[in-house]
Structure formats: C-alpha cells, structure tokens
C-alpha cells in the first residue's frame, strides 16, 4: 500500500482530501485508483509533461513512468511542474 500526497489544487478536486492510501502493482495503477485520476491522465492515458510524480523521492520517470513498480513504496507525491514559477 502506498500513501499518495496531492497538491492543493488536486486536493480541492478530491473534496479537500490531501492524501489517499492506495493499492496497486505500479504507479499507474495507484494513480488510476484516485477519484481525480481524470486530471492526471490525458484522453490517451498519458501523463501531462508538466506532471511530476515522485516515488519515495525519486522521479517516477526514471523508474519506468507509469510502469514504476510499487512493491516497497511508502509515499507517492504528485507535484505540478509549474509550482513555484
């Protein structure tokens, strides 16, 4: 099980919840289980290029993107690349 932390704009879309506990074999599985999944994936199922997903502090793109395995993962943090400027 992984703990997913949302940035505030997404938290507002999730009814104010800042985090979720999710199961899944991959990061993609975990994100698709969120109630705001439609905002993370485009209509072809790809991540927006400005969407950064960190798996225990490591950019998921360095570990296969959506296919990044979750086995020992404790935390997934979603960060919009534009945050901060």
């Amino acid at each position, binding site marked *: 099980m992984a703990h997913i932390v949302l940035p505030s*704009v997404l938290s*507002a879309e999730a009814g104010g919840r800042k985090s979720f506990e999710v199961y899944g074999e991959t990061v993609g599985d975990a994100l698709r289980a969120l109630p705001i999944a*439609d905002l*993370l994936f*485009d*209509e072809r199922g790809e991540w*927006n290029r400005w969407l950064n997903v960190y798996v225990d502090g490591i950019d998921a793109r360095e570990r296969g993107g959506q296919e990044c395995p979750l086995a020992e993962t404790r935390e997934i943090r979603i960060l*919009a690349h534009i945050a901060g400027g």
Partner: protein
Amino acid sequence: MAEGPLLAGWGVYHATVDARDGTIHAAANHIVYGPTVRRSIDGGLTWERSRKLSLPSDSGMTVNAAWHVQPGRPEEPDTLYLGGDPAVLFRSDDGGETWEVNRGILEHPTRRAWLEGAGGLCCHSIQLDPIDPSRMYVGITSAGIFRTDDGGETWHPRNAGTAADHLPDPDVEVGQCVHKLLLHPARPERLWQQNHCGVYRSDDAGDSWERVDGNGVPSQFGFPIMLDPRDPDTAFVIPEESYEYHYSPAGRFAVWRTTDSGETWQQLNDGLPDRAWAAVLREASAYDERSVYFGTQSGSFFVLDDRDVWVEAARHLPPILSVEVTEWPI
C-alpha cells in the same frame, strides 16, 4: 451563494449561468491537469466535473482546452454546446455530464486550411438561432465562421467579405480570423463580429459581411464585442493597437459605440483612466437590457451607467478571462 474565489487555480476561460435552470457552467483549464467542464447547481458552493473530454483516436488529436459553454435552447433543456481547442465543438444532452464531439466540424473538408492562432485553434463563439432550431453558428480563430442549417450535420463557411490580411492569399473561403461572433437576439439574421482584420456586420445570416470599422474606430484589431438587446443597430468594441501590440491604441483606453449599424462610432471613455494600456479578452465582456460590462487583463471590472460613464465596480483582481451577466439571487 459562494463568495469565491471559485475553482481556485484554474483558468476559467468562460463561465455562464444557464437561464433555463440556474446552473453555472464553466470551461476551466489547467496547464497540468488539462481541460475540464464544470457545473454547479448551488451558486458555486459545490461543483461537478464532466466526464473527461475526448476526441476519437482516429482523429489523431486530443483536446487542448475548453473555451466556451453555450446552453441550448429552451425546448432542449438538457442540451449544451461546448467549443474547444483544436477547433472542436461538443454537444451534451445530459446537462453537461458527457460530451460528444460534432463530426461535421471535426472532419470538415477545409480543416487542413485552418491555421493555429496565438490562442490556439479555439472554437470560442457558439450562437444559436432563436427562431430556426436547425441553424447555428460557430466562430473559430484562424478558421472563420461556419453555419449549419441542418442541426449540425453539415457546416458551411460564412466569411465572404471579411479580410484575411494575415494570409498570403487574402481571397480565401476559410482561414479568416474571427475573434468574437454575436447574433442579435431580436434580429437573428443580423450578426456582428470583431475580427483580427476589422469589425463586421451581416444582415443575411453571414452570407455576406460589411466592414464597419473604417468610420472612426482607431484600430481594426480587438477581441470583444457587445450588443444592445433592444437595438440591433448598436454595438460596442474595444480596440487594441494591433495584432502585435495587445493594448489600447496610443494609450487611450476606450470603448467605441455605434448606434447606426456601424455608420459612425463614438468614443466612450468617461470614467476610464486617461492613460492606460489595457487589454480585454474575447470572453471578458457581456451585455444585457441594463448595460454593458467588461473586465481587463489588469483586473478591473467596468459597467456603463445610464449617463454613459464607466464605473469601475471592482479592481485588483487577477486577469479577467470571462464576464457574463445574470440575475443573482441574494
């Protein structure tokens, strides 16, 4: 009623209140989280997000932005229309929960000649003929105006007489750069448009256009246009310097009004700053029986009072993307 900010963090390109049932609809976009369509039945306190917008995979395109939400006719209470980028029109028949793309626009035979403008290939204007239920119009940046007379099955370019100075061959059927299109509600065959290349009026449902900005308007370029529902001969525009310089010509921020179908224009600048380089976006103006209204990119909101003086009703807002007017219950 919610005080706001509502949909914080989202770029609300257009929001409107559906006069049929009071629902607020919003085209809300985010650079990371994409295009969305929202609706609220409680004055903005809570919002529902439509099912994700999508285009057929065989089109090779994806939806880049939601631009304009247009409630349908009174006799089709669950129908709404949505204009978006890349030059797409959607229709909903379930109050905005799901949206289906219009194939006639998506697969239009002239699409290859449509050029992407600075704001993308945006379908920003949707006008419904209030008398003929099978007739409607769309305005698409750098593609032009299209009319359907069969309920949206087929669409015909209606750009005859409008300039296309930005194209190497200005004598073209499509590619004209309409910035905003409005139909006069009391005389539906009369259309007005602010174009990249002038202000135009049509008295025959877009079959032909007469250019009317040569009589006093200081620039051909601008985005919004406003009307007077009681008088089809009245229109208001807010000129900008040029397509390269999106601010008031010579620092003289003014609205220009015609009351004679574009024969003459008068400057309305009482109440506006003496020196200002303002810009007003295409969705950032509105009109009703009482007045005309607009908001600037510098966050000021103006209303014209009955002495033709502009009243700055709000200031220090973020850039104003969209203005609509409605009766708001207190």
